């Protein structure tokens, strides 16, 4: 968590300093790294036999709970955004 915050702050500062330099398009690079990140996430899921084994066991309960948790979160954030006037 500390290293992620450091990476973010370093990024923002570098961006701020480079603000008036020629703009580079980072979209393609970002996309490539995202694919790499998701690939390694998938890889660690696939390698985790304990996780894969427990999926059918708790599957239905887990699906119901996760859908409700995400659903309520989205509704609450949407409502809170309206009340607090988040743009």
């Amino acid at each position, binding site marked *: 968590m500390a290293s992620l915050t450091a990476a973010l702050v370093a990024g923002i500062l570098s961006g701020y300093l480079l603000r008036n330099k020629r703009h580079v398009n980072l979209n393609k690079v970002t996309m490539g790294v*995202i694919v790499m990140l998701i690939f390694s996430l*998938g890889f660690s899921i696939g390698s985790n036999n304990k996780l894969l084994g427990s999926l059918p066991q708790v599957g239905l309960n887990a699906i119901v709970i996760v859908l409700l948790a995400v659903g309520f979160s989205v509704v609450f954030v949407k409502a809170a955004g309206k009340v607090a006037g988040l743009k």
Partner: protein
Amino acid sequence: MIKYILASLIFGAVLGYLNSNWGNVTAGVWVSDYVFNGSLMLLVFVMGLVFGMDKESMGKIRQAGFKILVVPFAVACGSILGGAVGGLILRIDVVAAAAVSAGYGWYTLAGPLVGQLFGTEWGTLGFVVNFLRELLTIVSISLLVKIDKHAPVAAGGATTMDTTLPIIVQYCSSGELITAFSSGFTLSLAAPFTIMIIATLR
């Protein structure tokens, strides 16, 4: 873009499965640790870079001010309530079901912690629920962004400061970076406390 994400997720999972079950061709930890953390750090840096270069971004944050904390607070309330309602519907322990969803997607924490407080079978549920939350956010992001501007951040929970952050920024805007990161950060801090507080209710 979502098709590349899904393809790499599935491809990665299949390769990871084959690698760990039919002879470790490469040390799996190399991919799931070094490649994962390396690409994550790089991405978070690049997101910050794009944000820092955007002249309007700072103004947007100043405008939002402390209101930005409304999002993680709403996510926490929604998750816990959603978990409790799920417990009622499934006729399982309501308090444990609420604790499980108070992991906000941080499965490496929620699994062991819930397991310790409620017993192993709840730990397994805690692990799977929060793992599915991250997966669901990644898979349904193009749908979520149509519901509400902050819906992907709401769905991602604690994961919006790391794994799902780059995808959210790509799908929303670089202005969503601070909302996502601060929400994920706050929820990561809150997760262990809320799980333990809920556990005292039993």
